[in-house]
């Protein structure tokens, strides 16, 4: 990287730092400092007046100074949150990437490609809150004869009993994930479509001439070639899903067994006023994401080597 810079452009030593200073200062205050402060707070009690170990009660297990982490890792509500986050990751990531790939491949074959892509992509422009309202209306459950929610109207049309989608523990997390899929498929589709366009048409044509059908061409030639992009999309989606908050907050508030990690953090901080527990949850969250950070830097260094 450095070797690209011509010698005539060298400058006094402090000049680069003048350009960097505003950005570095703001990032230090808003990202680096809070990181360390959160780590510290996670070891403190709920009023930050003493270490967390004072919250221990004698007849319960105690993790000493890590008492908040006992809550963050073993409490029933956090267990629900972990299980739900895993559900979110498995279902939402596979659905968005799968559907995104499907639509990208199909749209490549039609003339109204750009319109179709815009339609799928449009939910990305909407806030989670707006999407929450849209889907709460779709899922609406009327106790009487009339169903104004589209889904229950369909259920009724097929002779079924209307379902309260958002309070029924069998369906509600899945119902929330559908909203996430609706919003994020466009993102996966756009990136995968760009990758597909970069696949050399000559190789595809050669395979077709050799008698390979579309199915084989897709799995044996297309997918291996765009595999690096798929990995990137999957990583990005996993990070996004881990941080999911707004959908749950707006649609169920984390009730009826739909709790997720980020919503629990918010509840602990701003409803229960326990910064210790909230910080511990935040630390757990960042610990889960650290592999993704390392992966990102690693990938970046690889790309720089190619450059």
């Amino acid at each position, binding site marked *: 990287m450095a070797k690209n810079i011509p010698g005539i*452009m060298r400058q006094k030593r402090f000049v680069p730092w003048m350009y960097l200073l505003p950005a570095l200062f703001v990032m230090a205050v808003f990202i680096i400092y809070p990181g360390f402060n959160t780590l510290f707070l996670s070891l403190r009690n709920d009023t930050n007046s003493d270490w967390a170990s004072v919250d221990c009660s004698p007849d319960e297990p105690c993790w000493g100074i890590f008492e908040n982490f006992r809550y963050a890792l073993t409490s029933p509500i956090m267990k629900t949150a972990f299980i739900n986050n895993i559900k979110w990751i498995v279902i939402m990531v596979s659905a968005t990437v799968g559907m995104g790939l499907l639509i990208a491949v199909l749209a490549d074959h039609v003339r109204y490609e750009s319109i179709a892509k815009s339609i799928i992509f*449009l939910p990305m422009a909407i806030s989670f809150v707006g999407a929450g309202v849209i889907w709460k209306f779709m899922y609406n459950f009327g106790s009487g004869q009339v169903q104004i929610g589209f889904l229950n109207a369909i259920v009724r049309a097929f002779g079924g009993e209307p379902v309260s989608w958002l309070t029924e523990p069998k369906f509600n997390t899945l119902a929330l994930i559908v909203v996430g899929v609706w919003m994020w498929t466009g993102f996966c589709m756009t990136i995968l479509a760009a990758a597909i366009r970069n696949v050399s048409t000559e190789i595809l044509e050669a395979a077709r001439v050799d008698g390979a059908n579309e199915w084989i061409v897709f799995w044996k030639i297309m997918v291996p070639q765009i595999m690096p992009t798929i990995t990137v999309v999957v990583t990005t989606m996993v990070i996004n899903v881990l941080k999911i908050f707004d959908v749950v907050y707006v649609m169920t508030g984390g009730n009826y067994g739909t709790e997720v990690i980020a919503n629990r953090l918010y509840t602990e901080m701003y409803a229960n006023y326990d910064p210790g527990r*909230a910080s511990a949850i935040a630390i757990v969250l960042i610990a889960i994401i650290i592999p993704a950070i390392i992966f990102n830097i690693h990938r970046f260094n690889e790309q720089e080597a190619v450059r």
Partner: protein
Amino acid sequence: MKKSRFFRWLEGLPIHIVLIGLCLIWLLPTLGLLVTSFRPVQDINETGWWTIFSKPKGYEEFQSYCAPCHGESGNALPSADLTNPDLVNNYRRSFNLLSSLNSEISGQPHMESIAVPDEQAAANILSYMRRISGIDDRPIFTFSNYIDALSGYRGRNTYSSDCESGQQSLDLFCDARDLANPRGMGRAFFNSLAVAIPSTIIPILFASFAAYAFSWMDFRGRQWLFALLVGLQVVPLQMTLIPISRLYAQLGLNGTFLGIWLFHTGFGLPYAIYLMRNFLGSLPREIFESAYLDGASHWTAFIKLAIPLSVPALASLAIFQFLWIWNDLLVALVFLGGEHPVLTYQIGNMVTSLGSGWHLLTAAAFISMALPMIVFLALQRYFVRGLLAGSVKG
């Protein structure tokens, strides 16, 4: 020739069916919201939005029970004209109607050969009669939901009807001042703008400086500093909320615009610098070299060369940052709260407090979606470019 074209079309048919089907599924939820936001409140709760062009509630029952004698329009019998409001007002409840249907008229049973409707059917007939008599006449589409949402109206009728009759609640003025009502979406719209515009400009400005240094200046630690930046991009926002809100409490920045601008700047920067550096770094070296040979300083090269050349990157960055901030709920909830409610905050509040006030909720949601959708559709090219530059090309 013709045959082969037909076969090609037939081969492509499954693709079209799947793709168009998916597009319809994707559009349907938004369409439902849009249609509902323009319907009168009674209609929203009586029938699904997809029935908008079908006959009103009670039409079927009226046709089978009443039309044989009273006629399709309800005024075939002058003595018992069902479009007469005075007559309909006698039947405010369905059991009134039923008891009158059960009683005899001049020695003959009212319904003669036709069976008397059950309670549900009678209620539907009644609501249809109120419609054709003009007591409860309402249009298919109305703007009143939007007016109510913008002005923060929470009463039982509509903002305009209350204002006409002079019975508005104490905090409504019935003029442009109501757009500033703290409960309304009008004020929230301006708050959202006040949050989003500076929070878009400041980080892009800072990022351009930093990105220039990263691409065209040489200094120690450049490599690892930039690698750190790549890592910072995925740091979850949640982790920083607690320390920053404590810091803000000490500085008195909680609930101020300045506080939220700075926060969004901090969080927008890693991605913004990353994207700008990728763009600036890919500009041809010769341009900068010759500028330098001509005696240009770094400052001149930055202002006269780097900034004008990177307009496409600046555009994608601006769209990204703007949409992200406009749509954000969490940061607004924590740092602004009810002090300066933004659109997302307002809707979030309405969802929890109104429950099923769908006429207000759908209109409010659409008010908040309109601007990002326009921005997105108009500038989609830049949006997609930014997305690709950020996550694939690197």
